């Protein structure tokens, strides 16, 4: 469970989040909102990439401020632009990067790398330079790299925004098929329809917090 208690966040003078208190327990949670509504900042608070300037965020009782490293093992993160997430030059090497950081034994790293690559049809490309993959393949590699680390929750920050229609669908299917809990920031409303809960952000606050059948139409009305 992720507990958010009286959380506020500001970058210098600019306040982006105001006094949030939430419990995140559902299997699929969607986060929507306009540009600058604070949703990306919110996502980064969930695994301690950002530490709130006020209040606290706890994951299974661990405070992101004090136990950042332990929190990041529980909560994985997939970024909008896979080019900025792929760290090492070769596909299999990059996939193993997070596993090495966890300090796993070599044969375990090899086993999990193999499994994750097969899952997303990247196995034939394992010795390929990562920069030559297509946009969709890059995002799948980014997801595979996080999935192999076996976190309990994965946070996605606009994972399909930069992809074409076919790859959007491919990545959306990949997210649907995850055994883990997921928090997904997205503008792709059709993809969010069967989620368990939708948080609509506006001006640093949660304006609507409801089932998709209620929250998504209300969000569309709010934006038009």
């Amino acid at each position: 469970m992720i507990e958010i208690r009286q959380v506020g966040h500001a970058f210098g003078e600019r306040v982006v989040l105001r006094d949030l208190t939430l419990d995140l327990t559902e299997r699929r949670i969607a986060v929507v909102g306009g540009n600058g509504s604070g949703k990306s900042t919110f996502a980064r608070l969930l695994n301690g990439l950002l530490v709130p300037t006020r209040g606290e965020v706890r994951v299974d009782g661990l405070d992101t401020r004090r136990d950042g490293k332990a929190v990041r093992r529980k909560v994985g993160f997939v970024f909008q632009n896979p080019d900025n997430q792929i760290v090492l030059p070769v596909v299999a090497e990059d996939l193993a990067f997070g596993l090495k950081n966890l300090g796993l034994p070599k044969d375990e790293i090899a086993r999990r790398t193999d499994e994750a690559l097969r899952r997303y049809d990247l196995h034939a490309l394992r010795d390929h330079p990562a920069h030559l993959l297509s946009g969709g393949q890059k995002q799948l590699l980014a997801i595979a790299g996080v999935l192999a680390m076996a976190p309990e929750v994965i946070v996605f920050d606009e994972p399909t925004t930069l992809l074409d229609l076919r790859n959007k669908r491919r990545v959306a299917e990949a997210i649907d098929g995850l055994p883990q809990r997921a928090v997904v920031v997205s503008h792709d409303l059709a993809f969010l329809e069967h989620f368990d809960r939708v948080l609509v952000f506006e001006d640093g606050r949660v304006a609507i917090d409801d089932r998709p059948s209620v929250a998504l139409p209300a969000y569309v009305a709010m934006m038009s």
Partner: protein
Amino acid sequence: MTPYVPGDSPVHRCPPGRKILALVAAGTLLFAWPRLDLALAALAAAALLSRLAGIPVRLMLAQLRPLAWILAVLVLVQLALDGWQAGLLVAARLAALVLLAGLVTLTTRSADLIEALQGGLSWLRPLGVNPAKVGLAIALTLRFIPVLAAIAAEVREAQRARGLERSLVALTVPVVVRMLKMSDDIAAAIDARSYDPDRDSR
């Protein structure tokens, strides 16, 4: 990236660290004792070793091509000033070293070479250099070069549309700014994947 020539010769099998040390030793030796017989012996050794490693003569000669005009000028200057022996010494020494260096490059996979370098850097640890961090930096550099080349090509296209393609400033500023913004995201992505910069090398 390296033009590696696969093989199973003793030259290929020699550990990369030992090859680099041998090369540095040869360079020091040839400059400490500038003697024609030593330089010629080194040249002969380079030829012999590349034969042993099964490197085509054509590839070895290609190593010398970028140096061709420098060599020519040097030999001419030395001939005019100090006689033919001095000219021959300078040319033979330079050619021998470049060939030996080329031989190391052609018979070693770059991944092995990088690993050897990372291992070889552990003596810098007392100076505050952490070999594991150097290893990550090396991998990131290799990852970024094609990314930067792609950004540069993209920006060049955008500038061409505005008739600015010949201006290096108009090309470089957007590339560098984009790169700096990217670096924040990349650092966050590395941290998000549980990288711990202060942990010791494995």
